[in-house]
């Protein structure tokens, strides 16, 4: 309970966001939209970390630092993914996942 807001509310919000991200990851074809779904998934995990930190372990900072590091990893991942996507676009002129088998060798 944080000033009237129960912990479960945060967790349920995070859960819904996570599984919406999973749905987008499975359904979408365009590589950039898949990347956006991944960002949704990472962000929902951050909400859980922060809520657990504040409500169950007040006075500690572990959850906050985990979130900071996850945000940094997400930034690194997005930059490398977009570099790869632009490279693929140069070779194949579209960025649907069906054409990605050319990356194997």
């Amino acid at each position, binding site marked *: 309970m944080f000033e009237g807001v129960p912990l479960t509310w945060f967790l349920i919000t995070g859960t819904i966001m996570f599984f919406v991200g999973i749905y987008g990851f499975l*359904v979408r074809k365009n590589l950039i939209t898949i990347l956006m779904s991944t960002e949704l998934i990472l962000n929902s995990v951050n909400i859980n970390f922060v809520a657990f930190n504040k409500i169950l372990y007040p006075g500690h900072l572990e959850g906050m630092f985990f979130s900071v590091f996850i945000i940094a990893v997400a930034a690194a991942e997005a930059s490398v993914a977009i*570099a790869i996507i632009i490279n693929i676009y140069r070779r194949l002129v579209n960025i649907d996942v069906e054409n990605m088998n050319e990356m194997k060798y």
Partner: protein
Amino acid sequence: MTANQLMFTLFAAVIIVFSVLTVTSRRILRAATYLLFVLVATAGLYFLLKFNFLAAIQLTLYAGGIVVLIIFSILLTSHIAEKLEKPSLSKKLPALLAAGAGAVLTILTILQYQFPAEATDTGRTNIREIAHSLISTEKFGYALPFEVISVLLLAAMVGAIILAKKRKD
């Protein structure tokens, strides 16, 4: 309903509605804008929990950095007027089933679990405390992950430049 509950409900509604729109919108630039709304509402949740530093990071790095990067790459790789094709039902149904079943299972588990009621502190996090933890090597110090993440960011930067560079051949 207190003011906090009201604000939480508002942010949670924005997060859920716009994350659904992010994965279902057929115009890719709009999907990126909806993602921006989701990330800003998440920053609002962090402000509600009084993690001001984290909310600032969320706004500058996620909403300011990653979304701009995504929009740039959308403009480089696709036409704005173009609509994405609709996913077929045979693809949609299993994904919906998997995501729905997972969500229902997780929410039921969360609702059944009895979380211990801890005394909450309502103070906001001291920025001096955060800075000391980030460079401290003692217990609750994060000097090693901090250094590792800086090496990771350098490696990602070098990798991105090399990957996106034009080949000479």
